[in-house]
């Protein structure tokens, strides 16, 4: 149990500190770093889905005036570590997926780099490829662990027996689509290799963590940490895809090292982001639910099939939330993977929870319908008083409060449960809901420095702001930890010059960095008291001893949706999204609201639009740009509301916060599907909900 900081600056509705720079466009993103006479890179990509490069002809490219280097596997430097096959680029002639980087051209201008890339001739020994995911494949395998280290399979009790004894059963298969993160700022970098004194690499990179990025680059190139500096004050969105470095970072560093003293710039094109920057695997979710007539769940089983790349395993933990969400007398979760000739999947906002709260939350709606029970009530009836997986008590769990307050605010009471019976001006109208959950995580390592400088407190930590608000909320935490006015606190982030900080991922950033700042402030006050002198400085780190292992720590939420489906065309509109969340204390309601509604709207996008259409004939995403890969646009959203309950959790950390970056996208898609069912009577179990899936079943 932690003594919670008294919130004075925390909880205030402060405007973003980086706001003026962002509305003017003067915030400098990685590619935009001003450097003297930069050169420009363009990646070369494999044009076969599997095979071996037999020849590379760079003559015509190198003959162009202004081309500075053409780096391929034939002349690229040998990396010190090739353990990560995604990052071990240009190390061999093997091709593992279409679009894999096979070289990089560097030229005086971006136009020339692109022209030269077109002139490189590559010959392949092409081999048959295999890129179709199916639950029927004979080569599905159980990974050792699922991301980031959860058990692959779990069993509690006798699922088959409980299922057989259940009065009502739902046995269905659900599927989520392959989706790409697509931050608006592409994966981009500026890099400079200064060869003097053994060499130093300065990398301005769009990353969710300068320190983890630096560590990866140092390992790849065999460089000591002090020989690499990573700088990233602003990130134009990441949603997980900038949480770990991808091949573009290796290419730009190779290009910089090939041209010592010359800064080089590389930005992936939007099309290249569909092969090199990670994505969420499609998932196939076989769900079994069995319950008594009173709605109590006896059996809950989720068997997940998904894909990974043949060269590198990433096992999305889709079955994990089903392990703790509701009570069940017996329970089973499994994960099986197909290793295919496809790009490498990776983190995408709420890996595990986002897809893993789709199938089960739609199944809960189907169960409620089969029981003739209100879906809110069904969830309340299966509320566990302890974590069903570990038996631990909850640090705090206010799902029921979220459900009740959400129902109240949305106007759920008196809802006619019959599907397909409400018609307004040619539109079928329905409502649906689902629960949300996200674990509260703290990373192991982060350190902050507090220094008194010119009458102000300066806090330094190598953290990242992806638009999440770190520039603004970390000063609020520091102010309360120092018992100082927030205007007297300056926080510096986004540079490996500052102390080590964990990745902005797993909704753990503010929790982890804030914990380090609180400890640094405690050290500072302990050493220098209330009247410090100029230059006084203290450091503090995340205190692992303070980590609570006795409790299950999660944030919860409930989302409510109104859907309208055109009775003739099947067009789906969602005029209302309403979420209520229990996420501990909210540090800044302004930036928090933006995170919640942003997550919910991305969930709407997943529900209705997002689908990387896989062309299995050639092994690539057919719709690899923003005209064909649809994301929610302004006219797709209506009234989007995020609310939260005043939750005090003394077990999570000194701030009493839980992390809010991901929970908003969890459950939304299920709530949309459930609302579409209520509107039309058509149950769409495969995302996205497009009108072709609705039309045949319209009343």
């Amino acid at each position, binding site marked *: 149990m932690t003594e919670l900081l008294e919130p004075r600056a925390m909880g205030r509705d402060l405007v973003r500190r980086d706001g003026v720079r962002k509305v003017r466009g003067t915030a400098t*993103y990685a590619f935009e770093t001003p450097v003297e006479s930069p050169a420009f890179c363009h990646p070369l990509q494999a044009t076969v889905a599997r095979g071996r490069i037999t020849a590379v002809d760079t003559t015509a490219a190198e003959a162009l005036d*202004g081309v500075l280097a053409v780096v391929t596997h034939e002349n690229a430097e040998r990396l010190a570590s090739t353990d990560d096959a995604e990052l071990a680029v240009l190390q061999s002639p093997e091709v593992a997926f279409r679009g894999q980087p096979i070289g990089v051209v560097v030229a005086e201008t971006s136009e020339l780099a692109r022209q030269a890339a077109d002139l490189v001739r590559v010959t392949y020994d092409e081999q048959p490829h295999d890129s179709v995911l199916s639950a029927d494949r004979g080569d599905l395998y159980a990974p050792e662990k699922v991301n980031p280290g959860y058990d692959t399979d779990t069993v509690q009790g006798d699922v088959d027996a409980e299922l057989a004894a259940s009065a009502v059963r739902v046995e269905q298969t659900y599927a989520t689509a392959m989706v790409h993160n697509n931050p608006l700022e592409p994966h981009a970098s500026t890099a400079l290799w200064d060869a003097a004194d053994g060499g130093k690499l300065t990398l301005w990179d769009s990353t969710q963590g300068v320190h983890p990025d630096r560590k990866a680059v140092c390992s790849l190139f065999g460089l000591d940490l002090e020989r690499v500096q990573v700088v990233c004050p602003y990130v134009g969105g990441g949603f997980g895809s900038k949480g770990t470095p991808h091949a573009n970072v290796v290419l730009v560093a190779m290009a910089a090292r090939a041209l010592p003293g010359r800064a080089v710039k590389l930005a992936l094109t939007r099309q290249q982001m569909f092969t090199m920057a990670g994505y969420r695997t499609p998932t196939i979710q076989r769900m079994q639910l069995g319950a008594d007539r009173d709605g109590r769940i006896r059996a809950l089983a989720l068997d997940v099939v998904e894909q990974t790349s043949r060269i590198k395993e990433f096992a999305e933990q889709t079955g994990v939330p089903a392990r703790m969400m509701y009570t069940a007398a017996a329970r089973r979760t499994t994960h099986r993977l197909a290793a295919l000739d496809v790009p490498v999947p990776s983190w995408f906002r709420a890996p595990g929870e986002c897809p893993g709260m789709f199938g089960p939350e739609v199944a809960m709606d189907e169960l409620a319908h089969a029981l003739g029970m209100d879906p809110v009530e069904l969830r309340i009836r299966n509320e566990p008083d302890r974590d069903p997986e570990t038996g631990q008590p909850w640090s705090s769990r206010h799902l029921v409060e979220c459900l009740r307050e959400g129902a109240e605010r949305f106007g759920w009471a008196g809802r006619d449960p019959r599907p397909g019976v409400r018609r307004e001006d040619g539109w079928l109208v329905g409502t649906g809901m689902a629960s949300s959950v996200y674990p509260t995580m703290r990373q192991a390592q982060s350190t902050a420095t507090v220094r008194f400088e010119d009458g102000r407190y300066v806090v330094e930590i190598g953290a990242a702001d992806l638009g999440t608000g770190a520039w603004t909320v970390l000063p609020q935490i520091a102010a309360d930890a120092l018992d100082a006015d927030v205007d007297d606190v300056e926080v510096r982030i986004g540079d490996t010059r500052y102390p080590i900080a964990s990745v902005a991922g797993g909704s753990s950033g503010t929790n982890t960095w804030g914990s380090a700042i609180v400890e640094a402030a405690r050290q500072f006050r302990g050493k220098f008291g209330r009247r410090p002198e100029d230059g006084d400085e203290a450091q503090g780190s995340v205190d692992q001893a303070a980590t609570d292992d006795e409790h299950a720590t999660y944030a919860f939420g409930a989302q409510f949706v109104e859907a309208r489906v055109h009775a003739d065309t099947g067009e789906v509109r969602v005029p209302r999204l309403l979420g209520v969340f229990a996420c501990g204390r909210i540090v800044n309601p302004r930036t928090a609201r933006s995170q919640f509604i942003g997550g919910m*709207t*991305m969930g709407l996008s997943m529900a209705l639009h997002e689908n990387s259409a896989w062309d299995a004939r050639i092994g690539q995403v057919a719709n690899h740009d923003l005209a064909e890969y649809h994301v929610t646009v302004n006219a797709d959203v209506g009234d*989007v509301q995020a609310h939260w309950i005043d939750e005090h959790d003394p077990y999570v950390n000194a701030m009493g916060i839980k992390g809010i970056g991901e929970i908003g996208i969890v459950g939304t898609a299920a709530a949309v599907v459930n609302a579409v069912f209520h509107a039309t009577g058509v149950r769409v179990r495969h995302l996205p909900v497009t009108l072709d899936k609705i039309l045949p079943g319209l009343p």
Partner: protein
Amino acid sequence: MPGTDRAMDADIRLRVDGELHELTVDTRTTLLDLLRERLGNTSPKKGCDHGQCGACTVLLDGERALLCLALAVSHDGAEITTADGLAPEGELHPVQQAFLDHDAFQCGYCTPGQVCSAVGVLSEVDRGWPSHATRDLTAAPELSTDEVSERMSGNLCRCAAYAHITPAVQQAGGAR
């Protein structure tokens, strides 16, 4: 420019955020790359390079336009205003102030394009231009939620601040 084929070059004049530039450009160069890679003006952003995302929206000769779809050589004599040129340093355009007031962004990458697009929208509405959402084509369009959402839909926001962008544009429209 070192390393470029002179046969591909052309001379143009451009005014960007009030400053006149006389330039020799590669005829393949877009206005977006010209601003970002040669003039050091990175207020317009590159999100897709195909006119699909709106991040490079500016005011080109007074109208909102996508710089990634404009070849520099075909805009000799043009006047460009980026988000950074909408107000003098230390001040903000009412649209920019409204975006701050409503927290109408997170990562900020689409924001300069959203801001310029909104300035264009307000001007188009002032001039009575209808949109797909306009019910009565004979009446002056109003800044309803539907009108603003429709007109701002060429500007993608992956952080999905749309529910804040629309009221920000309406506030700025009312503040004129």
